[in-house]
C-alpha cells in the first residue's frame, strides 16, 4: 500500500509537468486543430521570462520582493508567450485554418526562428520587442469609439505603433544598462534558481516531497481550474466552444470568429508560457528546452482524445504513473515472489530509456483499439 502511494505521488509529480506543458496545446491543437510545433518554443519564452524576472528582482530596488519573483514571473510569462502567440496568429496561423499539415510546416519554421532569435538577440532587446508589441496591440483598444470608426483610424494606429516602438527601444536600453548580462547575446544555457523557501523538501503522509515539484503541482492545478472555469462559465469561453463546434453558424449569429480565434490562440500560448516557468524550476533554460517536451505534449493530447481537456488530465497522470511504475521497477516490490522470467523482463524495462520505449509501445497498442483516445469527442461536428 505504501509503495503504491509512493508511486502515485511520483506519478503525479511527473504527470503534472506533462499536464501543464500539454494544457496549452490541448486548446490550440484540441480545440482549434492547429498542429503547433512552436508550442515548445513558446514554453521556452516563458522559461526565459522567468530568468529575466529573476535578474530584475535582484536589482537593489526590488531585492526585498525577491522571494516572490517566481509568482510574478508566472503572470509575466503568460503575457509574454500570449503576446507572441497573438502575433503568430495574426500573421501566420490565420491564413492556414483548416490545413493542419500546412500549420505543421509553418509552425516548425517559426520554432526554428524563435530558437535562433534567443541565441542571437540580446534578451534585453527581446524584452523591449515584447513590450512594444504589447503596447502596440493594446493601445488601439482604448481609443474612443468615435476614432475607431473614423476613416483616420489607421493613422492613429500608426502613431500608437510608433509610440510603442519608441517605448520598446527605451526599455531595452534601460534593461541593458541596468543588467549588463542581458545586454549581450549568448547561446549558452542560463539558470533559474528558486528562492530559498521553494527549495528542499517537505513531508506529506510519510513521503518526502521536493518543494519545487509541489509548486509545479499547484501551478498546474490553478491553471487547470482557471481554464475549465473560463471555458465553461465566461462569455468568451462559451463563444470559444461554440466557434470550435460550428464556425459558420457562429459567424451567422454575429460572433466575431476572428476575435475568438485570437483569444483562443493567445490563451493556449500563454499557458505554454506558464509551463515554461514550471520547467525552468526543474532544469536549465536554453534555446532547446521546449523541444524536449513537444513530443510528450502531443502524446498526451492524442492519448486523452483530441478536443477534450478531461482526457488530457487523465492521460498525463496516467503516463506519469506508468513512467514511475515501469521506470523505477516498482512492480517488483509490489509482488516480490514473482517468477524469475517475469522479474527479469521487468528489470529489463526498469531504466529510463526502456520505460519510454515501453510507454510508447503501450500507447500505440491502446490507440489501435481506441483510435480517438481515452475520451473521444461525442456529438456531431460540422467540420468532421
Amino acid at each position, binding site marked *: 500500500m505504501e509503495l503504491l502511494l509512493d508511486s502515485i505521488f511520483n506519478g503525479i509529480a511527473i504527470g503534472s509537468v506533462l499536464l501543464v506543458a500539454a494544457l496549452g496545446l490541448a486548446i490550440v491543437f484540441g480545440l482549434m486543430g492547429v498542429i503547433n510545433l512552436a508550442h515548445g518554443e513558446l514554453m521556452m519564452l516563458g522559461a526565459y521570462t522567468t530568468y529575466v524576472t529573476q535578474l530584475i528582482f535582484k536589482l537593489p530596488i526590488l531585492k526585498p520582493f525577491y522571494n516572490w519573483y517566481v509568482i510574478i514571473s508566472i503572470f509575466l510569462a503568460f503575457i509574454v508567450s500570449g503576446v507572441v502567440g497573438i502575433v503568430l496568429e495574426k500573421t501566420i496561423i490565420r491564413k492556414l485554418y483548416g490545413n493542419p499539415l500546412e500549420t505543421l510546416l*509553418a509552425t516548425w*519554421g517559426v520554432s526554428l526562428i524563435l530558437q535562433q532569435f534567443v541565441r542571437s538577440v540580446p534578451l534585453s532587446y527581446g524584452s523591449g520587442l515584447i513590450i512594444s508589441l504589447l503596447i502596440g496591440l493594446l493601445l488601439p483598444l482604448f481609443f474612443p469609439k468615435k476614432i475607431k470608426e473614423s476613416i483616420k483610424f489607421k493613422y492613429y494606429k500608426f502613431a500608437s505603433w510608433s509610440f510603442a516602438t519608441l517605448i520598446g527601444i527605451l526599455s531595452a536600453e534601460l534593461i541593458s544598462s541596468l543588467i549588463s548580462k542581458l545586454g549581450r547575446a549568448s547561446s549558452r544555457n542560463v539558470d533559474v534558481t528558486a528562492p530559498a523557501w521553494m527549495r528542499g523538501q517537505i513531508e506529506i503522509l510519510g513521503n518526502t516531497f521536493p518543494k519545487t*515539484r509541489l509548486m509545479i503541482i499547484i501551478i498546474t492545478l490553478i491553471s487547470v481550474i482557471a481554464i475549465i472555469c473560463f471555458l465553461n462559465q465566461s462569455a468568451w469561453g462559451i463563444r470559444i466552444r461554440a466557434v470550435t463546434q460550428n464556425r459558420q453558424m457562429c459567424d451567422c449569429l454575429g460572433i466575431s470568429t476572428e476575435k475568438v480565434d485570437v483569444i483562443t490562440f493567445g490563451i493556449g500560448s500563454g499557458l505554454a508560457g506558464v509551463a515554461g516557468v514550471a520547467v525552468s524550476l526543474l532544469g536549465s533554460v536554453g534555446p532547446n528546452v521546449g523541444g524536449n517536451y513537444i513530443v510528450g505534449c502531443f502524446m498526451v493530447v492524442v492519448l486523452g482524445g483530441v478536443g477534450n481537456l478531461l482526457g488530457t488530465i487523465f492521460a498525463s497522470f496516467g503516463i506519469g504513473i506508468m513512467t514511475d511504475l515501469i521506470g523505477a521497477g516498482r512492480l517488483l516490490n509490489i509482488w516480490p515472489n514473482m517468477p524469475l522470467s517475469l522479474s527479469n523482463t521487468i528489470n529489463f524495462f526498469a531504466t*529510463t530509456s526502456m520505460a519510454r520505449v515501453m510507454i510508447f509501445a503501450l500507447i500505440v497498442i491502446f490507440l489501435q483499439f481506441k483510435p480517438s483516445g481515452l475520451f473521444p469527442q461525442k456529438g456531431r461536428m460540422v467540420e468532421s
Partner: protein
Amino acid sequence: MRISRRILAGLATASIATTLTSCGGGSKTSGSFDDSVTVGILHSLSGTMAISESTLVDTEIMAIEEINASGGITIDGKSYKIEYIIEDGASDWPTFAEKSKKLIDQDEVPVVFGGWTSASRKAMLPVYESKDAFLYYPIQYEAQECSNNIFYTGATPNQQSEPATEFMYKRSPAAGGDFFFVGSDYVFPRTSNTITKAQVKQLGGKVVGEDYLPLGNTEVAPIISKIKKALPSGGIIINTLNGDQNVAFFKQIQDAGITPSEGYYVMNYSIAEEEISTIGPEFLEGHYGAWNYMMSIDSPASKKFAANFKKRWGSDRVVADPQESAYNMVYLWKQAVEDAGTFDDNAVRDALIGQKFDAPQGPVEVMPNHHLSQTVRIGEINSEGGFTILEETDVVLPQAWNQKHPSSKGFACDWTDPSKGEKYRL
C-alpha cells in the same frame, strides 16, 4: 492556398537563413614569413554542441597565433606561417564526414584539428582512413579504438575514471560505500560504466544500480527514487550525464536531499569549469570531478595558459580540460612537423611518436598508440566554481584498449611496430 504557399516559402527561406552560419575565413596579416601552410579546424559552430565546441576553436586559434607570433614553423631554415580554415560540423555527424572530405580533397590541408562527440569521430574515421589523412582529436573519451589516422590527445578511461573510482572507494568521505551509476544514454557513459563496474568488483565494492537518461530527456524523478531505494543512507554516485541534463539532475537531487551533507557524493566525468558556471556552484559544491587539467593548477604554465586565454577572448572566460588538450595538440603537431622536416602525413606520423611537450597540466608525451601520457587530478568542487585539487597522480600511460573491459582485456596498440598495429595480444 496561394497566400499560404508564399508564407511557407518565406518561412523556409528565413529558417534556412537563420541556421546557416558563415564558414571559412583565415588570418590575413602578413609578417616576415617565407611561406605559409593552411590547416583545417572542424568543430560545431551551430547546433547543440556549438557551446562546447566553439571554446575549442577559440583555443586552437590562440595556439596558432602564439606559434605565428614566435616565428611560425621552421623547416630547413625556412619559416612557415600557419593559416587556418574553419569549417562548421553543425552538430550533425554526417556533416563532419563531408567537411572532412572537403578539407582533405579541396583545401589539401596536411592536418585537421576537430571533433568532440564520439559520434562525430566515428563518422569521420572512415574518411581519414580511406584517404590516409590525419585527424587530431582533443576530447577525453571511452577509448576502445586505435586508428593509425587519428591522434587522440584527451584522456582514456584509465587516465580519468579509474583513478577517480579508486579515490571514491578508498579515500573519499563515502569510502567503502555502494556505487550507483547515472549517465546519458550513448556510447561513452555505457562503456565507461562497464569499465568502472569491473573495477569496483576488483576493489571489493558493490554496484547497486545504474540508469541511463535518453539524450534530451530531463525527467529525472524515476532515477531519484531509484537512488533513494538503492542507497538509503548515502553512497557513491558516478555521473556521466551530458550537458543540460546535469542541470536538471543536480537541481532535483538537491531538492530530494541527495547531498554531500546526507552522505551522497557524486563523482563527475563530464563537468569541467565551463559546466560548473552554467549549472551553478551552489548545486555542485562538495561533489567531485576528475580531469588531467584543472584551471586551479598552481604552476606557471597553467597560469600563463589561463591568462593568455582571458587576454585573447575576454576576462570572463575560463579554460578547462578539453581546451588544454586542444592547445597541446597544435603544439605537438608543430614539433612533429619541425622534426620530420616536411608536412607530409606519413613522415609527421612517425615523428609524432615520442614528442614531449611542457603542457599546462605538466609534461605530456606521445605514446606509440597515438594517445598521450598524462597526469590525473581529483578535485572537489568549491563555492567559487573551481576545483580544489585533492590528489595528483604520477604520469599515467594511456590504454587505447582498456585492461578492465571484458572485450579488450589483454590487448594493446602500437603503431611503431608493423607487426603489432591496431590491436595485438600482449
